[in-house]
């Protein structure tokens, strides 16, 4: 029943080489097809069961994400709100995870929604990645303020984003309909950081 992987298209399909133009100052790339699930769980009684499914404790501190590896491989769980999380997992796992999470929640108060195609994922790294983001993101991304493990929902230029600070890269999740806008914006913001400015 799975759809043909060959015909899948991500929102930034066709942008790969343009995004690469900012290297080496900024290494920018789309990481498409990440499995993404919105998890709502006000009821902490099932947190343990959910953690077992994911292999990660749910992050308790606002504006952070937790990562780990569980039965479904590497997983990141982002804090989006006091009872709201976004689960990020390897491509192709959304249905499996959806049922597993549902089962873990059982009849407790909670919800799981597959939102894998709602947003796409961009990664940014390299010496000017933070500069590039500073052109449109008002959140202070200095490591003393936003260390690895930070996850904020904010604005980048005029697009709402979820931003994760990983060990050596930033991850930007953006709604699919805004992806080309944001990609164009990033490429433009990166003009001064290019080796061969256009």
């Amino acid at each position, binding site marked *: 029943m799975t759809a043909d992987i060959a015909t899948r298209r991500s929102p930034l399909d066709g942008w790969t080489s343009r995004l690469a133009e900012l290297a080496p100052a900024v290494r920018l790339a789309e990481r498409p097809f990440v499995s993404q699930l919105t998890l709502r769980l006000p009821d902490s009684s099932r947190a343990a069961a959910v953690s077992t499914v994911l292999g990660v404790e749910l992050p308790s501190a606002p504006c952070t994400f937790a990562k780990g590896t569980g039965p479904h491989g590497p997983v990141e769980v982002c804090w*989006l*709100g006091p009872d709201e999380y976004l689960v990020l997992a390897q491509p192709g796992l959304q249905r499996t995870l959806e049922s597993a999470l549902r089962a873990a929640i059982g009849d407790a108060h909670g919800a799981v929604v597959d939102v894998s195609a709602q947003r796409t994922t961009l990664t940014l790294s390299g010496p000017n990645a933070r500069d590039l983001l500073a052109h449109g993101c*008002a959140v202070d991304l200095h490591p003393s303020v936003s260390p690895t493990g930070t996850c*904020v*929902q*904010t*604005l980048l230029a005029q697009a709402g984003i979820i931003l994760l600070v990983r060990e050596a890269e930033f991850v930007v999740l953006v709604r699919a309909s805004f992806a080309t806008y944001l990609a164009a914006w990033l490429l433009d913001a990166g003009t001064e950081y290019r080796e061969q400015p256009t």
Partner: protein
Amino acid sequence: MQLIPCPWCGPREEVEFHYGGQAHVAYPAEPAELSDEEWASFVFFRDNPRGPFAERWSHAAGCRRWFNAVRDTRSYELLAVYRPDQERPVTT
């Protein structure tokens, strides 16, 4: 541009927030029982003080939570922010 301290996410730029007007105006338990005047008062009439004002904000571009704030409408200074389930704090 103000920094507004979301009770969950901490201080963020004003542009991330959505203003919701006066706080603590409950939807009437039984609208059908209200006179036209009482209903109009719920629909259209809000306090508009010069000075501290308890009002609602939503962290629209962030955690999407609604919260309350007491803000001085003269200086715009936020005197307190609190979650919807909390009492209005005493501010000076």
